Protein backbone atom coordinates (compact mmCIF):
# COMPACT_ATOMS: atom_id res chain seq x y z
CA UNK A 1 0.00 0.00 0.00
CA UNK A 2 2.86 2.32 0.86
CA UNK A 3 4.22 1.62 -2.60
CA UNK A 4 1.07 2.99 -4.25
CA UNK A 5 0.97 6.00 -1.94
CA UNK A 6 4.58 6.94 -2.56
CA UNK A 7 4.55 6.20 -6.27
CA UNK A 8 3.12 9.55 -7.48
CA UNK A 9 5.66 11.54 -5.49
CA UNK A 10 8.56 9.36 -6.55
CA UNK A 11 7.61 9.56 -10.21
CA UNK A 12 7.16 13.32 -10.05
CA UNK A 13 10.57 13.63 -8.36
CA UNK A 14 12.15 11.35 -10.92
CA UNK A 15 10.74 13.14 -13.96
CA UNK A 16 11.56 16.58 -12.61
CA UNK A 17 15.09 15.44 -11.70
CA UNK A 18 15.75 14.04 -15.16
CA UNK A 19 14.41 17.18 -16.80
CA UNK A 20 16.64 19.35 -14.61
CA UNK A 21 19.74 17.23 -15.12
CA UNK A 22 19.16 17.03 -18.87
CA UNK A 23 18.87 20.77 -18.97
CA UNK A 24 22.18 21.16 -17.14
CA UNK A 25 24.20 18.54 -18.99
CA UNK A 26 22.74 18.66 -22.49
CA UNK A 27 20.99 22.05 -22.61
CA UNK A 28 17.86 20.50 -24.11
CA UNK A 29 19.74 18.56 -26.81
CA UNK A 30 19.08 15.16 -25.23
CA UNK A 31 16.65 13.85 -22.66
CA UNK A 32 18.22 12.05 -19.77
CA UNK A 33 15.60 9.27 -19.63
CA UNK A 34 15.99 7.95 -16.14
CA UNK A 35 12.26 7.29 -16.22
CA UNK A 36 12.69 4.85 -19.10
CA UNK A 37 15.46 3.06 -17.20
CA UNK A 38 13.20 2.81 -14.15
CA UNK A 39 10.38 1.39 -16.28
CA UNK A 40 12.75 -1.23 -17.73
CA UNK A 41 13.98 -2.03 -14.22
CA UNK A 42 10.37 -2.40 -13.10
CA UNK A 43 9.85 -4.85 -15.95
CA UNK A 44 12.66 -6.98 -14.59
CA UNK A 45 11.89 -6.70 -10.90
CA UNK A 46 8.26 -5.85 -10.14
CA UNK A 47 5.04 -7.80 -10.39
CA UNK A 48 2.81 -7.11 -13.38
CA UNK A 49 0.25 -4.93 -11.59
CA UNK A 50 2.83 -2.92 -9.67
CA UNK A 51 4.95 -2.39 -12.76
CA UNK A 52 2.02 -1.41 -14.97
CA UNK A 53 0.90 1.21 -12.50
CA UNK A 54 4.44 2.52 -12.22
CA UNK A 55 4.74 2.71 -16.03
CA UNK A 56 1.37 4.44 -16.33
CA UNK A 57 2.19 6.90 -13.60
CA UNK A 58 5.67 7.64 -14.90
CA UNK A 59 4.44 8.06 -18.45
CA UNK A 60 1.60 10.30 -17.33
CA UNK A 61 3.86 12.53 -15.24
CA UNK A 62 6.37 12.66 -18.08
CA UNK A 63 3.60 13.69 -20.47
CA UNK A 64 2.47 16.38 -18.05
CA UNK A 65 5.89 17.80 -17.30
CA UNK A 66 7.37 17.55 -20.79
CA UNK A 67 4.35 19.20 -22.36
CA UNK A 68 3.61 16.42 -24.84
CA UNK A 69 0.13 15.07 -25.44
CA UNK A 70 -1.34 13.20 -22.51
CA UNK A 71 -1.09 9.48 -23.11
CA UNK A 72 1.81 9.60 -25.55
CA UNK A 73 4.57 8.52 -23.18
CA UNK A 74 2.02 6.72 -21.03
CA UNK A 75 1.37 4.37 -23.93
CA UNK A 76 5.06 4.08 -24.86
CA UNK A 77 6.20 3.38 -21.29
CA UNK A 78 3.43 0.85 -20.81
CA UNK A 79 4.51 -1.04 -23.92
CA UNK A 80 8.16 -0.91 -22.90
CA UNK A 81 7.30 -2.15 -19.43
CA UNK A 82 5.35 -5.08 -20.88
CA UNK A 83 8.19 -5.85 -23.27
CA UNK A 84 10.69 -5.76 -20.39
CA UNK A 85 8.41 -7.89 -18.25
CA UNK A 86 8.24 -10.62 -20.85
CA UNK A 87 11.90 -10.35 -21.83
CA UNK A 88 12.89 -10.68 -18.17
CA UNK A 89 11.68 -14.27 -18.39
CA UNK A 90 14.51 -14.85 -20.85
CA UNK A 91 17.28 -12.48 -19.72
CA UNK A 92 18.79 -12.37 -16.24
CA UNK A 93 19.41 -8.87 -14.99
CA UNK A 94 22.82 -9.87 -13.60
CA UNK A 95 24.24 -9.77 -17.12
CA UNK A 96 24.71 -6.02 -17.32
CA UNK A 97 25.79 -5.94 -20.94
CA UNK A 98 22.55 -7.69 -21.89
CA UNK A 99 20.59 -5.22 -19.80
CA UNK A 100 22.44 -2.34 -21.48
CA UNK A 101 21.77 -3.81 -24.92
CA UNK A 102 18.12 -4.41 -24.12
CA UNK A 103 17.75 -0.87 -22.77
CA UNK A 104 19.35 0.50 -25.91
CA UNK A 105 16.83 -1.46 -27.99
CA UNK A 106 13.98 -0.20 -25.77
CA UNK A 107 15.12 3.36 -26.29
CA UNK A 108 15.27 2.84 -30.03
CA UNK A 109 11.78 1.30 -29.92
CA UNK A 110 10.59 4.32 -28.00
CA UNK A 111 12.12 6.59 -30.64
CA UNK A 112 10.59 4.50 -33.40
CA UNK A 113 7.17 4.75 -31.79
CA UNK A 114 7.56 8.50 -31.43
CA UNK A 115 8.55 8.84 -35.08
CA UNK A 116 5.60 6.75 -36.16
CA UNK A 117 3.09 8.53 -33.96
CA UNK A 118 4.31 11.96 -35.01
CA UNK A 119 4.39 10.88 -38.64
CA UNK A 120 0.83 9.52 -38.76
CA UNK A 121 -0.90 11.66 -36.18
CA UNK A 122 0.77 15.06 -36.63
CA UNK A 123 2.25 14.47 -40.09
CA UNK A 124 5.57 15.65 -38.74
CA UNK A 125 8.75 14.00 -39.97
CA UNK A 126 11.24 13.35 -37.17
CA UNK A 127 13.65 11.22 -39.19
CA UNK A 128 16.22 14.02 -39.24
CA UNK A 129 16.64 13.59 -35.48
CA UNK A 130 17.57 9.92 -35.63
CA UNK A 131 21.33 10.28 -35.82
CA UNK A 132 21.72 13.45 -33.80
CA UNK A 133 19.21 12.76 -31.03
CA UNK A 134 17.72 9.30 -30.88
CA UNK A 135 20.88 7.24 -31.34
CA UNK A 136 22.95 9.19 -28.75
CA UNK A 137 19.97 9.05 -26.41
CA UNK A 138 19.69 5.28 -26.86
CA UNK A 139 23.39 4.85 -26.11
CA UNK A 140 22.99 7.04 -23.05
CA UNK A 141 20.04 4.98 -21.83
CA UNK A 142 22.08 1.79 -22.34
CA UNK A 143 24.93 3.10 -20.21
CA UNK A 144 22.58 4.52 -17.59
CA UNK A 145 20.60 1.33 -17.28
CA UNK A 146 23.72 -0.79 -16.73
CA UNK A 147 24.77 1.56 -13.94
CA UNK A 148 21.27 1.73 -12.50
CA UNK A 149 20.78 -2.04 -12.46
CA UNK A 150 24.19 -2.51 -10.85
CA UNK A 151 23.48 0.10 -8.20
CA UNK A 152 20.03 -1.31 -7.47
CA UNK A 153 21.43 -4.82 -7.15
CA UNK A 154 23.93 -3.57 -4.60
CA UNK A 155 21.14 -1.73 -2.77
CA UNK A 156 18.94 -4.83 -2.77
CA UNK A 157 21.85 -6.84 -1.41
CA UNK A 158 22.36 -4.35 1.38
CA UNK A 159 18.65 -4.13 2.24
CA UNK A 160 17.45 -7.71 1.80
CA UNK A 161 20.65 -9.72 1.72
CA UNK A 162 19.73 -10.97 -1.78
CA UNK A 163 18.20 -9.71 -4.99
CA UNK A 164 14.43 -9.53 -5.14
CA UNK A 165 13.98 -10.95 -8.61
CA UNK A 166 11.17 -13.47 -8.50
CA UNK A 167 11.80 -17.15 -8.93
CA UNK A 168 9.97 -17.20 -12.24
CA UNK A 169 12.19 -14.50 -13.75
CA UNK A 170 15.76 -15.66 -13.29
CA UNK A 171 16.41 -15.80 -17.00
CA UNK A 172 16.80 -19.55 -16.93
CA UNK A 173 14.16 -19.89 -19.61
CA UNK A 174 16.51 -18.49 -22.20
CA UNK A 175 19.86 -16.71 -22.00
CA UNK A 176 21.23 -17.70 -18.63
CA UNK A 177 23.10 -15.44 -16.29
CA UNK A 178 24.82 -18.35 -14.68
CA UNK A 179 28.19 -19.43 -15.96
Amino acid at each position, binding site marked *: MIYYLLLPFVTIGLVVLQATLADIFFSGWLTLELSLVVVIYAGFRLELMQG*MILALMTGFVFDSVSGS*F*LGLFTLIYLNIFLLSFFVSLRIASEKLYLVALFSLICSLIESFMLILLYRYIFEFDMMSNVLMVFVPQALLVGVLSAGFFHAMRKAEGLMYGKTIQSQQRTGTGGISAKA
Partner: protein
Amino acid sequence: MFFKNYRTVILVGAVIVAALVLLSYSLKRDSGESVVKNLALEAAAPVQKIFSAAIKGVDNAWERYVHLVGLVEENRNLKNKIAGLQTDLILYKEGYQEAQRLQKLLSLQEEHQYEFIAARVIGREQAALSKTIWIDKGSASGLKPGMPVLAPPGLVGRLTDVSWHSSKVLLLIDENSNADVLVQRTRVQGIVRGAGSRGCVVRYVSKMEDVKEGDLIVTSGLSNIFPKGLLVGRVSHVGHMDVGLFLQIRVVPFVDFTTLEEVMVLAADQRNISQKKKPAK
Protein backbone atom coordinates in the same frame (compact mmCIF):
# COMPACT_ATOMS: atom_id res chain seq x y z
CA MET B 1 -13.56 -19.56 -15.83
CA PHE B 2 -12.54 -17.76 -19.02
CA PHE B 3 -11.88 -14.54 -17.19
CA LYS B 4 -9.86 -16.33 -14.54
CA ASN B 5 -7.61 -18.00 -17.12
CA TYR B 6 -7.10 -14.87 -19.20
CA ARG B 7 -7.17 -12.36 -16.36
CA THR B 8 -3.63 -11.11 -17.03
CA VAL B 9 -4.16 -10.75 -20.76
CA ILE B 10 -7.44 -8.94 -20.21
CA LEU B 11 -5.83 -6.65 -17.65
CA VAL B 12 -2.93 -5.78 -19.92
CA GLY B 13 -5.25 -5.24 -22.85
CA ALA B 14 -7.49 -3.02 -20.79
CA VAL B 15 -4.61 -0.88 -19.62
CA ILE B 16 -3.28 -0.47 -23.17
CA VAL B 17 -6.74 0.45 -24.38
CA ALA B 18 -7.03 2.95 -21.55
CA ALA B 19 -3.72 4.53 -22.56
CA LEU B 20 -4.87 4.70 -26.18
CA VAL B 21 -8.16 6.27 -25.15
CA LEU B 22 -6.29 8.82 -23.05
CA LEU B 23 -4.05 9.69 -26.00
CA SER B 24 -7.00 9.89 -28.39
CA TYR B 25 -8.95 12.05 -25.98
CA SER B 26 -5.96 14.28 -25.48
CA LEU B 27 -5.41 14.63 -29.22
CA LYS B 28 -9.07 15.36 -29.82
CA ARG B 29 -9.24 17.98 -27.11
CA ASP B 30 -6.07 19.87 -27.89
CA SER B 31 -6.92 22.72 -25.55
CA GLY B 32 -3.87 22.49 -23.33
CA GLU B 33 -6.14 22.49 -20.30
CA SER B 34 -6.64 19.33 -18.33
CA VAL B 35 -7.43 19.00 -14.67
CA VAL B 36 -5.23 15.95 -14.16
CA LYS B 37 -2.39 17.49 -16.10
CA ASN B 38 -2.70 20.67 -14.09
CA LEU B 39 -2.68 18.64 -10.90
CA ALA B 40 0.50 16.90 -11.98
CA LEU B 41 2.11 20.21 -12.87
CA GLU B 42 1.04 21.75 -9.57
CA ALA B 43 2.64 18.84 -7.74
CA ALA B 44 5.77 19.01 -9.88
CA ALA B 45 6.35 22.74 -9.40
CA PRO B 46 7.61 22.62 -5.77
CA VAL B 47 9.79 19.62 -6.58
CA GLN B 48 11.20 21.55 -9.53
CA LYS B 49 11.96 24.47 -7.22
CA ILE B 50 13.78 22.25 -4.76
CA PHE B 51 15.84 20.58 -7.48
CA SER B 52 16.61 23.87 -9.15
CA ALA B 53 17.80 25.36 -5.87
CA ALA B 54 19.93 22.31 -5.08
CA ILE B 55 21.40 22.13 -8.55
CA LYS B 56 22.02 25.84 -8.61
CA GLY B 57 23.99 25.42 -5.39
CA VAL B 58 26.01 22.59 -6.89
CA ASP B 59 26.48 24.58 -10.07
CA ASN B 60 27.75 27.56 -8.10
CA ALA B 61 30.13 25.33 -6.15
CA TRP B 62 31.37 23.83 -9.40
CA GLU B 63 31.88 27.22 -10.93
CA ARG B 64 33.82 28.27 -7.86
CA TYR B 65 35.93 25.12 -8.17
CA VAL B 66 36.59 25.79 -11.86
CA HIS B 67 37.38 29.35 -10.91
CA LEU B 68 39.87 28.09 -8.32
CA VAL B 69 41.52 25.83 -10.89
CA GLY B 70 41.99 28.78 -13.22
CA LEU B 71 43.02 30.97 -10.34
CA VAL B 72 46.64 29.77 -10.29
CA GLU B 73 47.17 30.73 -13.92
CA GLU B 74 45.25 33.94 -13.44
CA ASN B 75 47.28 34.69 -10.33
CA ARG B 76 50.52 34.17 -12.23
CA ASN B 77 49.37 36.43 -15.02
CA LEU B 78 48.21 39.06 -12.58
CA LYS B 79 51.55 38.94 -10.74
CA ASN B 80 53.37 39.49 -14.01
CA LYS B 81 51.02 42.32 -14.80
CA ILE B 82 51.53 43.83 -11.35
CA ALA B 83 55.31 43.63 -11.78
CA GLY B 84 55.02 45.44 -15.12
CA LEU B 85 52.68 48.02 -13.67
CA GLN B 86 54.94 48.56 -10.67
CA THR B 87 57.85 49.22 -13.03
CA ASP B 88 55.70 51.70 -14.91
CA LEU B 89 54.55 53.23 -11.66
CA ILE B 90 58.12 53.68 -10.44
CA LEU B 91 59.02 55.34 -13.73
CA TYR B 92 56.00 57.61 -13.53
CA LYS B 93 56.68 58.41 -9.89
CA GLU B 94 60.28 59.17 -10.72
CA GLY B 95 59.15 61.42 -13.54
CA TYR B 96 56.60 63.10 -11.28
CA GLN B 97 59.14 63.75 -8.56
CA GLU B 98 61.61 65.08 -11.08
CA ALA B 99 58.93 67.37 -12.44
CA GLN B 100 58.21 68.56 -8.90
CA ARG B 101 61.86 69.31 -8.29
CA LEU B 102 62.24 71.09 -11.61
CA GLN B 103 59.13 73.08 -10.86
CA LYS B 104 60.68 74.21 -7.60
CA LEU B 105 63.85 75.15 -9.43
CA LEU B 106 61.83 77.15 -11.91
CA SER B 107 59.94 78.85 -9.11
CA LEU B 108 63.29 79.83 -7.62
CA GLN B 109 64.20 81.42 -10.92
CA GLU B 110 60.89 83.26 -11.08
CA GLU B 111 61.16 84.46 -7.48
CA HIS B 112 64.62 85.95 -7.76
CA GLN B 113 64.66 87.10 -11.37
CA TYR B 114 68.14 85.70 -11.79
CA GLU B 115 69.68 84.01 -14.75
CA PHE B 116 70.05 80.42 -13.77
CA ILE B 117 71.69 77.45 -15.40
CA ALA B 118 70.13 74.15 -14.39
CA ALA B 119 72.46 71.25 -13.76
CA ARG B 120 72.14 67.67 -12.66
CA VAL B 121 74.12 66.27 -9.75
CA ILE B 122 76.35 63.51 -11.07
CA GLY B 123 78.41 62.72 -7.99
CA ARG B 124 78.99 63.62 -4.40
CA GLU B 125 81.98 63.60 -2.14
CA GLN B 126 80.96 63.55 1.48
CA ALA B 127 84.28 62.76 3.12
CA ALA B 128 85.25 63.96 6.60
CA LEU B 129 87.24 66.86 5.28
CA SER B 130 85.37 67.65 2.11
CA LYS B 131 81.70 68.18 1.37
CA THR B 132 81.32 68.69 -2.35
CA ILE B 133 79.15 67.58 -5.24
CA TRP B 134 79.76 67.23 -8.96
CA ILE B 135 77.37 68.68 -11.50
CA ASP B 136 77.10 67.99 -15.22
CA LYS B 137 77.62 71.53 -16.49
CA GLY B 138 80.88 73.35 -16.94
CA SER B 139 82.51 76.30 -18.66
CA ALA B 140 80.93 75.20 -21.95
CA SER B 141 77.61 76.16 -20.41
CA GLY B 142 78.89 79.45 -19.12
CA LEU B 143 79.81 78.43 -15.57
CA LYS B 144 82.67 80.11 -13.73
CA PRO B 145 84.31 79.45 -10.38
CA GLY B 146 82.68 81.30 -7.51
CA MET B 147 79.14 81.23 -8.93
CA PRO B 148 76.51 80.54 -6.27
CA VAL B 149 74.60 77.28 -6.49
CA LEU B 150 71.02 77.03 -5.27
CA ALA B 151 68.36 74.43 -4.80
CA PRO B 152 64.91 74.94 -3.38
CA PRO B 153 64.50 76.49 -0.94
CA GLY B 154 67.93 78.00 -0.45
CA LEU B 155 71.65 78.18 -0.91
CA VAL B 156 73.70 75.06 -1.66
CA GLY B 157 77.20 76.44 -2.03
CA ARG B 158 79.44 77.81 -4.74
CA LEU B 159 81.43 76.54 -7.66
CA THR B 160 85.08 75.92 -6.93
CA ASP B 161 86.45 73.94 -9.85
CA VAL B 162 84.95 74.29 -13.29
CA SER B 163 85.97 72.11 -16.21
CA TRP B 164 84.41 72.16 -19.69
CA HIS B 165 81.49 69.89 -18.98
CA SER B 166 81.41 69.40 -15.22
CA SER B 167 81.96 71.43 -12.11
CA LYS B 168 82.63 70.94 -8.45
CA VAL B 169 80.36 72.63 -5.91
CA LEU B 170 81.66 73.40 -2.46
CA LEU B 171 78.70 72.81 -0.19
CA LEU B 172 77.64 75.24 2.48
CA ILE B 173 78.39 72.63 5.15
CA ASP B 174 82.02 72.19 4.07
CA GLU B 175 84.36 73.54 6.74
CA ASN B 176 86.15 75.63 4.11
CA SER B 177 82.92 77.32 3.10
CA ASN B 178 82.25 80.89 4.25
CA ALA B 179 79.51 83.33 3.36
CA ASP B 180 78.38 86.72 4.62
CA VAL B 181 74.98 86.42 6.24
CA LEU B 182 72.58 88.28 8.43
CA VAL B 183 69.85 87.38 10.88
CA GLN B 184 66.64 88.26 9.07
CA ARG B 185 64.74 89.42 12.15
CA THR B 186 67.38 91.71 13.68
CA ARG B 187 69.64 92.33 10.63
CA VAL B 188 72.67 91.31 12.69
CA GLN B 189 75.54 90.37 10.40
CA GLY B 190 77.98 87.50 10.65
CA ILE B 191 79.79 84.89 8.66
CA VAL B 192 78.36 81.44 8.20
CA ARG B 193 80.84 78.62 8.06
CA GLY B 194 80.39 74.95 7.35
CA ALA B 195 80.49 72.53 10.24
CA GLY B 196 80.22 69.20 8.44
CA SER B 197 77.54 66.91 9.74
CA ARG B 198 76.54 69.48 12.35
CA GLY B 199 75.38 71.84 9.61
CA CYS B 200 76.76 75.38 9.85
CA VAL B 201 77.82 77.89 12.45
CA VAL B 202 77.52 81.66 12.36
CA ARG B 203 80.61 83.40 13.59
CA TYR B 204 81.52 86.88 14.70
CA VAL B 205 78.18 87.84 16.19
CA SER B 206 78.61 89.79 19.37
CA LYS B 207 77.19 88.56 22.66
CA MET B 208 75.32 91.81 22.88
CA GLU B 209 73.23 91.04 19.81
CA ASP B 210 69.73 89.63 19.83
CA VAL B 211 69.72 86.20 18.22
CA LYS B 212 67.21 83.50 19.09
CA GLU B 213 66.60 79.91 18.11
CA GLY B 214 64.40 79.75 15.04
CA ASP B 215 65.71 82.96 13.48
CA LEU B 216 66.19 82.82 9.74
CA ILE B 217 69.66 83.30 8.29
CA VAL B 218 69.93 84.84 4.82
CA THR B 219 72.83 86.01 2.69
CA SER B 220 73.77 89.65 3.24
CA GLY B 221 75.16 90.30 -0.27
CA LEU B 222 78.26 92.02 1.09
CA SER B 223 80.90 89.78 -0.44
CA ASN B 224 79.64 90.09 -4.02
CA ILE B 225 79.73 86.33 -4.25
CA PHE B 226 76.21 85.56 -3.05
CA PRO B 227 73.33 87.88 -3.88
CA LYS B 228 71.41 89.36 -1.00
CA GLY B 229 68.45 87.54 0.51
CA LEU B 230 69.16 83.90 -0.34
CA LEU B 231 67.91 81.55 2.36
CA VAL B 232 70.69 79.79 4.22
CA GLY B 233 69.18 78.13 7.25
CA ARG B 234 67.50 78.44 10.61
CA VAL B 235 69.19 79.00 13.98
CA SER B 236 69.04 75.81 16.01
CA HIS B 237 71.15 76.75 18.98
CA VAL B 238 72.54 79.95 20.51
CA GLY B 239 75.38 79.53 23.02
CA HIS B 240 76.70 82.19 25.42
CA MET B 241 80.18 81.15 26.50
CA ASP B 242 81.72 82.65 29.61
CA VAL B 243 84.90 83.47 27.79
CA GLY B 244 85.05 85.13 24.40
CA LEU B 245 83.26 88.01 22.74
CA PHE B 246 80.99 86.20 20.32
CA LEU B 247 77.90 84.04 20.42
CA GLN B 248 78.03 80.41 19.39
CA ILE B 249 75.26 80.08 16.82
CA ARG B 250 74.42 76.80 15.13
CA VAL B 251 72.42 76.82 11.93
CA VAL B 252 70.54 74.03 10.23
CA PRO B 253 70.68 74.58 6.44
CA PHE B 254 67.39 74.62 4.54
CA VAL B 255 68.74 72.43 1.82
CA ASP B 256 69.00 68.69 2.37
CA PHE B 257 72.40 68.02 0.82
CA THR B 258 71.97 64.25 0.89
CA THR B 259 69.05 64.26 -1.55
CA LEU B 260 70.23 66.83 -4.06
CA GLU B 261 69.61 65.73 -7.65
CA GLU B 262 69.25 68.96 -9.59
CA VAL B 263 70.64 72.40 -8.81
CA MET B 264 70.55 75.85 -10.31
CA VAL B 265 73.73 77.80 -10.84
CA LEU B 266 73.22 81.51 -10.53
CA ALA B 267 74.92 82.83 -13.65
CA ALA B 268 73.94 86.48 -13.32
CA ASP B 269 71.76 88.51 -11.02
CA GLN B 270 69.12 91.04 -12.03
CA ARG B 271 71.56 93.90 -12.33
CA ASN B 272 73.83 92.01 -14.66
CA ILE B 273 70.87 90.87 -16.73
CA SER B 274 69.71 94.46 -17.09
CA GLN B 275 73.17 95.49 -18.13
CA LYS B 276 73.28 92.73 -20.69
CA LYS B 277 69.93 93.78 -22.10
CA LYS B 278 70.95 97.49 -22.27
CA PRO B 279 74.38 97.65 -23.84
CA ALA B 280 76.46 100.74 -23.01
CA LYS B 281 75.99 103.50 -25.51
